[in-house]
């Protein structure tokens, strides 16, 4: 089947079986920033934004996301121009192995787009689906706060 996906603001037709998992399709199409961690909806390594909301792409069927906007980490910033959230992650020391980072950054983006000045509780609630074994989350929460502060400071 052909699916007319919209990925990172551009139409992106893909060939896939209707029951295929979005994560597999995205990775096959080169969006390797979405990672496999469990395939069961627990770890959030596969997080992408669908219509701005963080979703575990390992549980999403490709046939169900046609016509909706998909944002992967590749659509957030690039190596030549980081998104401010990505800068904040680096400056806060929130990146160790980096396997959780694309998902974390996307979840952070969804949060800050909705709530520019989140409380610590809100941050914890919003990142709760994203597992990280390396950092103990402390610096990730710092990074979200830093990103929010910078964004608000420059407005």
């Amino acid at each position, binding site marked *: 089947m052909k699916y007319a996906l919209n990925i990172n603001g551009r139409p992106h037709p893909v060939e896939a079986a209707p029951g295929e998992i979005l994560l597999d399709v995205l990775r096959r199409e080169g969006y390797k920033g979405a990672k*496999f961690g469990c395939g069961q909806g627990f770890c959030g390594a596969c997080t992408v934004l669908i219509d701005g909301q963080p979703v575990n792409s390992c549980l999403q069927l490709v046939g169900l996301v046609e016509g909706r906007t998909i944002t992967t980490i590749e659509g957030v910033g690039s190596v030549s121009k980081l998104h401010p959230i990505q800068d904040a992650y680096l400056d806060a020391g929130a990146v160790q192995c980096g396997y959780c980072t*694309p998902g974390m950054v996307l979840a952070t983006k969804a949060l800050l787009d909705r709530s520019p000045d989140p409380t610590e509780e809100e*941050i*914890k609630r919003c990142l709760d689906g994203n597992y990280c074994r390396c950092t103990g989350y402390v610096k990730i929460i710092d990074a979200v706060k830093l990103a929010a502060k910078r964004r608000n400071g420059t407005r």
Partner: protein
Amino acid sequence: MSSHATFREVNQVRRKVDGIGLVTGTALYTDDYDVHEMLSAKVLRSPHPHARIKAIDASRARALKGVHAVLTWRDVPRIIITEAGQGYPEPSPYDKFILDNKVRFVGDEVAVVAAETTAIALQALALIKVTYEELPAVFDPRDSMKKGAPVLHDEPEWKIPIPVEMDPKKNLCGRADVTIGDMPKGFAAADLVLEREYENQYAQHVANEPHTTISYLDPNNRLIIVTSTQVPFHVRRIVARALDLPIKRIRVIKPRIGGGFGSKQDIVTEPLAAALTMATGRPVRLQLTREETFTSSRTRHQTIIRLKTGIKKDGTLTAIEMDALQNAGPYGTHGLTVLTNTGSKILPLFRCENVRFNAWSVYTNLSQGGAYRGYGGTQSGFAMNIQMDEMARAIGMDLPALYKKLHIRKGEGSPVFAALGEGAEGHPMTIGSCGLSACIDIVAREIGWAGKRNNPGTGRLRRGIGMAVLMQGSSIPKIDMASCSIKMNDDGSFNLLCGATDIGTGSDTVMAKIAAEVLGVGTSDVIVFSSDTDITPFDVGAYASSTTYLSGMAAKRCAEKVADQIRAVAAEMLEEDAKGIVLRDGKAAGSKGEVTLGQVGLRSLYEKDQHQIAAFASAYSDQSPPPFAAHAVEVEVDTGTGRVRIIRYITATDCGTAINPLLCEGQVEGALLNGISYAMAERFIYNEKGRLLNASFGTYGVYFTRDLPEIRTFLVPTYEPSGPFGAKSIAEVNINGPLPAISNAIFDAVGIRLRKPPYTPETVFMALRGRKEK
């Protein structure tokens, strides 16, 4: 040089040198490599804890369209190996074949399939018909050495390559027995003798990236292995042995790694993938499912510790007798060395003249033990710190005061260092730096020790505080080796190649900063490439808290050699003596003038006496200077439900000079939260047939952000004279604190001693009820 103020790159906050690729999702992990026509591999695993394979019929699987190979024990070389990614000769028994005609735990490897798609590979697994003869199994390490216990390893090929005591007929795969001083005399001198039993639970590392290997043949018919490993050079050596290939035919590439924590210090997926590539000539990808990482990779060794200690009323420790019985699981990877580290990572911490460590590692038919951050120090730090708390209370001494009275200090040695090493004797060592007293003071002050201790309050919710102190090491003395090379480019930048294996730890950044400090350039002027066995010099890999200390030392030495060469060229350019030339701010400055490193680079490559400014250096140490840490935690116990809430957790760590303070704190916090979730929730639940029932994120117990308590992290600077710019390691030590500190805090709150984690509501509730009934 011992003043931090003089550092320009080291000890300063810098971004991770590899950070951009990680935050943009562009850095390649193993599974991100696109290799043309790659086959997908799947493993058939044993449903039985212990069985002999009577017959395997793979004909239907092989006939399935899209299947390229099905390998059983008949199809792979029968060469005994250990999968422990340790230096050669490994102190782990050779007790494993790539595939065997016997299975020793539920989840053991029976056969492996390579097919065009994962779906076909899974279909093929279902078509393999295996006839098992089930054998009696042993699950409790206390039963393993009993007469008549099932013997796991009866293969005649079994061997141990170093002279240590093991006996597979008795399921014994590790033994240590050392005595220092006079135990009866020590106990006789005590005012109080305590004897207690502790038992930690199985645990898994739960690195975010599952074990993944890609293997293929290159145009020269060499076997390329791209793999999520902590130990590329050990992978090369062990796969060569397992497949009977010359080492020169294998190239191991370490891409980005999604965390390891010890689980990727072993050879887990590499031999099977490589065997399939050799059988099919095709690229093969083998990735474990999340479930398989739990059931069939590696775990923390469950250990039962009986601890007997004698103490005088003034706090003098007169004797420590530690018996440890370790459950190695079905294969002895790291069993012996985790066992000896169980002794050596805690016993030297407290001054005591009479010490005995008597320990066994035994096979069982449960999950396979391996390296796990903490490496024995977790098990013994747990026992010792709870016992210290109990002793302090019994003699009426404040715990921080007792710790400060007893802990080892700078300039002191411990006979334990010489007596206990990596599976064998160790090496004498004098402590070159120790900031533990300062760490204790900080955590006591920050937690509010004086006001909160013994002050649980009344009512249903009770509060308590607890403490623990810890040490680890920095590399394995006289065994580990690290090396690197640096070459200079025409703009005064440098390429640093190292075998040091950045698995997310930040070691590339550490290497760059250390070299930059020596070369008088910015961290971003040093371009680091890590771990490709064809390209980078040797390094044992990322384990034993060795990288910052040992690989960092190699980087420093190598940079010093390069600096000498730069000074020689600059001396000619400036027409003055090289000795007076200083490298700083990207320049070589003498008394007569200065030249930029770019000018030096250009001249050396293009203008005069052309040569490549470059050097190699190795580092090896006879010391393993311990980092030290103190932990303090406040908990709230709900006496109605048994639920324990961590209110706040404070750590202070002495890692010498923090090469990159933010990354150091990150190491502390990651280790700490892993330790906290281990103490509170993580465990393996088996059924009576040895099957793991909770092999998933959802049921195992790792922590997410909602579980995160308030954490505060302090680094206490000291200067380790043997380390690069005064640095010691930091990776492991802080995982060891939560088991005892939280148990001690729970006692402070409600007066129950928990010596068998995790401290789940049920455990606490039952203990509270048990106390009421008494």
